[in-house]
């Protein structure tokens, strides 16, 4: 799998490149700002671009803007945004245009090479990936209307994994459930929360995320 890495912190960029090389990924390019990233994606057509959310020139959310631009121009190129922010709003922004082949992970995960590698593979397969920490915070949040109170504990676990972008098969594996049971849980959750079940998994992530983020 071919990957480009965009991060202005050289130490981190090089370290991540090494780790990924060791894990069997091909590093197709490295750069330190958003403009160079866009150019590199254009020329080298990687499978996935790993993007730091905060980059020059503005040190704001340039990385996220570049990621959205890549999504628009090259829908076949996956994007993994690394962020210091726990805010779900950035994740939601990343997914809102094209909710597939995209991931949003907290930056302190970079040394957990297994997590990164798993995310890259899933993105390569067209799924989307949301950091579990962000999802668990969203699920734990107290709400004025308390819509999650209608779910059982198991259903909440399933919902969180759906929000992280897991497929039904992966959810079954993780929770040691049969595929059929997972399907049944998901139908039940969508019914209880009055959500429409989307045909594709990544659309489903967007719906669940939007639901969790709303009051």
């Amino acid at each position: 799998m071919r990957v480009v890495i965009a991060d202005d912190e050289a130490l981190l960029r090089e370290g991540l490149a090494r780790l990924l090389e060791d894990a069997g990924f091909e590093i197709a390019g490295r750069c330190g700002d958003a403009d160079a990233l866009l150019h590199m994606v254009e020329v080298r057509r990687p499978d996935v671009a790993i993007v730091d959310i905060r980059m020059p020139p503005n040190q704001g959310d340039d990385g996220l803007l570049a990621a959205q631009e890549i999504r628009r121009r090259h829908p076949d190129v996956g994007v993994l945004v690394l962020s210091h922010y726990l805010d779900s709003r950035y994740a939601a922004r990343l997914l809102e245009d094209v909710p597939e082949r995209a991931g949003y992970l907290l930056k302190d995960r970079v040394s957990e090479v297994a997590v990164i590698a798993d995310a890259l593979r899933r993105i390569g397969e067209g799924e989307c990936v949301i950091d579990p920490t962000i999802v668990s915070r969203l699920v734990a949040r107290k709400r004025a209307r308390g819509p999650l109170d209608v779910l059982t504990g198991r259903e909440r676990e399933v919902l969180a994994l759906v929000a992280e972008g897991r497929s039904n098969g992966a959810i079954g594996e993780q929770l040691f459930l049969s595929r059929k049971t997972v399907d049944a849980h998901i139908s039940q959750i969508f019914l209880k929360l009055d959500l429409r079940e989307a045909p594709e998994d990544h659309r489903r992530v967007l719906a669940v995320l939007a639901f969790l983020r709303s009051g």
Partner: protein
Amino acid sequence: MIADGRTALYRALAGIALVAVAAATTAIVRGDPDLALAGESGAALAAELAAAALAVAAAVVTWRAGFIFPVLLATAALAWLVAEWNAPAAGPAFTAGLVLYAAWPPLLAAAALRGLDERPFDRPAAVLLALSFGTAVVLLGLASAAVFDPEARGCVQCPANLLLIADAPGLGDALGRAGLALTAIWTAAFAVLAAARIVGASPARRRLAAPVLLPAVAAVALFGADALHGLDRGFISNDPTDRAMRLAEASALALVAAGVALARLRTRRTRAALARLVLDIGAAPAPGELRARLADSLGDPSLELLHRLEGGEWIDADGRVTELPAAGEREATRVHAGGEEMMAVVHRPGLLDDPALVSELVTMASLALMHERLHASRRARLEELRASRARIVAAADTERRTLERDLHDGAQQRLVAVALAIRLARHRIAAADPTLDTGLAAAEARVRAAAVELRDVAHGLFPTVLADEGLRAALEELSEHTPQLVPRALPAGRFAGEVESAAYFAAVESLRLADHEVTVDAVVENGHLRVVIGAGTVLDGAMIQIRDRVGAAGGTVAARDGELRLEMPCAS
């Protein structure tokens, strides 16, 4: 108004003079009605006497030390009667009658030009008055008398003319005609000057001046017309036309007196309104009330009060520094008290043109004005304090944002990179050495924990989402970090930075101190953002910081029953 001794004396003297002159005039007219202007008719004589009495009365009521208008008016009224004295029955007063019979119109014109507002005579007025007195007293009076011998002209019963030098009928006729022609000219000039004054005056001054000036013009113009009527024969006589004119002049003179009364009534009404104003608002009016009352009693709703600070700058009622308006649509009348400029009333041009009105304003309302002024300058200081508090809070927030950025971009990035480097070392070097690998794994875990802690610290300093997306997004995002925060109905709009951060940090402080859920509701009402933070506990510890921030945004905080209510002005 209580008259002092001197004023009372002058008033008494005016009364005595009136009675004496009126008695003498009555005797002269009755002594030889055929030769009098009033004639046989008792009513005409009564009208003459009444006009004079009214004018003297008007002079007496407006009498004030140093004022010239009342003196001129009273003298004109007496001279008006003296016009009857150039008759045989005048006895020893006959000569006075010869000299002064035409003196009342110039005196009345002078009084009218002076006016109730004691306006100094300007150049055109002075020239006109010199011409009028020269014509009336010198040409028609002294010079004509000097060449007029009544006996030689066939008036055997006439008393002696004490000023006679030599009888010269031809010269006397010429002097008479010239005098009458000049009389017609100056009376017309007076009418033009008066008209110009009235047209050019501000509405306030016009209201004050017109009731006196217009009837005076009428009286003087009637005399001028009578002079034209007598131009052929060379003297003013007592034919039916002259007598009719005399009656009309009497009416006009009475109207002058009425005009004085009317103007006084108006002044008194304004004064009464101001007095009522002071009584109504007492010594401690509510802020802005004085302005409203003044606007009401002076009839200018746009009226504004500005106050002068010791430093010399002007502030409005809210304590904002402002400028006096330049001449044009608005006019500023400066009010002095105790020898120093105290305030300015900004109003429609001409509204306070009457100097008496301004002086009334100062004396009657000075207490209230002083209070209003104190209030405004206190507001100015408060505003200054609020602004400085807002600057401090804003500076602190900028500092926090910078710090947040530095932590994110600097320290946190480095920590993550270090964790990564340790992981690399574990891969490459320590894979074969389990002890080293365990040690490095522990170090990596600590560094990662530090990075997480640092992220939370940086976020607490100043969340980017607050600056980027506003209060609602920031509170919702905060609830992802801190589950016991329950944001409820929140407005989606943006507010001023200090308002948003005050509301946000009030919620953060409440969260820090509360042991249970903290709910946040907010609503925009009447240009204010009202925030209710329900914490279920007493939030005393957080109050100072919250008060500082909310106060800097110009708002207020109230704590009650475990609830914190913030209210801040917002433009949204």
